[in-house]
């Protein structure tokens, strides 16, 4: 169990929150008063001060005290700068550092521009060949695609033509049937009664063959 001083000091050390401390100290006016005053001081301490700092010649101060001594500098920054400079010179000069068969060789690159030109020509030729191969491949692909599309188009047209022809035949048959139906109807309505009358009349004649030639005239 903490006493009020311990509670207050725990809050000052940041181990207790302000709300917790306030709650626990509220019953003790002395410690609660200290707590409130401390809060005011904390707020006051957080407000930044703007008073400008006066100029003091600290260089003179330093030189008077330590001026006699030469400044010691570490060796590694110099080494680092030196190595960087060397690397830069090697990279921009025709010097070439090569590791070959376990040996490090420093050589001078000659005919640099000619070599570069040759490399460039080789690269261009290689690029041209690649492009040609690519175009050839593209052409083949396109031809194949076109042939496939033509076959598909032919199939489609043939199928459509067959369908149209079949439809025409059905229509023709229907037409013929209708004509036949009309002829039969005509025969039933006109020819059959006439024939029936003829057949009826001829039954009273002795020889039908003798009359027929006259009728035909």
């Amino acid at each position, binding site marked *: 169990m903490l006493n009020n001083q311990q509670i207050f000091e725990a809050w000052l050390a940041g181990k207790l929150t302000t709300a917790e401390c306030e709650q626990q100290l509220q019953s003790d006016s002395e410690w609660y008063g200290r707590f409130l*005053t401390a809060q005011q*001081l904390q707020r006051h301490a957080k407000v930044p*001060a703007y008073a400008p*700092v006066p100029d*003091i010649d600290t260089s003179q101060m330093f030189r008077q005290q*330590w001026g006699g001594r*030469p*400044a010691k500098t570490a060796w590694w920054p110099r080494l680092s700068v030196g190595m960087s400079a060397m690397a830069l010179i090697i990279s921009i000069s025709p010097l070439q550092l090569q590791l070959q068969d376990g040996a490090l060789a420093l050589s001078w690159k000659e005919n640099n521009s000619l070599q570069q030109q040759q490399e460039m020509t080789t690269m261009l030729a290689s690029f041209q060949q690649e492009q040609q191969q690519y175009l050839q491949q593209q052409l083949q692909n396109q031809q194949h695609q076109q042939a496939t599309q033509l076959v598909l188009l032919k199939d489609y047209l043939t199928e459509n033509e067959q369908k149209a022809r079949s439809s025409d035949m059905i229509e023709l048959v229907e037409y013929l049937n209708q004509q036949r139906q009309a002829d039969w109807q005509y025969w039933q309505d006109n020819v059959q009664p006439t024939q029936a009358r003829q057949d009826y009349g001829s039954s009273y004649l002795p020889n039908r063959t003798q009359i027929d030639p006259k009728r035909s005239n």
Partner: protein
Amino acid sequence: MFKRSDESLINKALDGDERAWQQLVSRYQTMLYHYGLRLMGNPDDARDLLQDVLMVLCRNLAQFRGDSSFKTWLFGIANYRAMDMLRKRKPTQDIDDSPDLFNDDEPTAEARLYGQQTQKIVQQQLKHLPADQRLVVELRFYQQFTFDEIADQLAISSNTVKSRFYAALDKLRTQLEVAHVEQSANF
């Protein structure tokens, strides 16, 4: 940006590197000057204190062993010099005439929230505390040292530090209550 430690700057300064010394000074001189202003109560004394502390620091730089943080060690020097100056100061000198630490033209959000008037009252009442109590309050609230660190710096026991601290709080509480009543009466 890469920030060198205080120890590294001290070692370089001891090797004669003036830039390291200047870096070390610029890191702490604002803190020291404002500490002086609050403690001494006027800019002239604060300037003298700052110059004095920097001179002692420059002379004794090699004495820093790293047993505590550099800030604790530096404020140990500053406390000793400040108390020395306060002891030598004329008793008739009026600390109420000292200028404000806070510039009224540049209020921060926090300052507005808290109220500039209250800040001024706290600042004024701090000046009426006895020097040893003011020093403990300064070190605890404004420099964020622990009671043990303050005890080390002042070469006194932690209980003495606490006793001064609580006495300062009690006194301040009474002073602030009176000041608030006076302020209300003036309105």
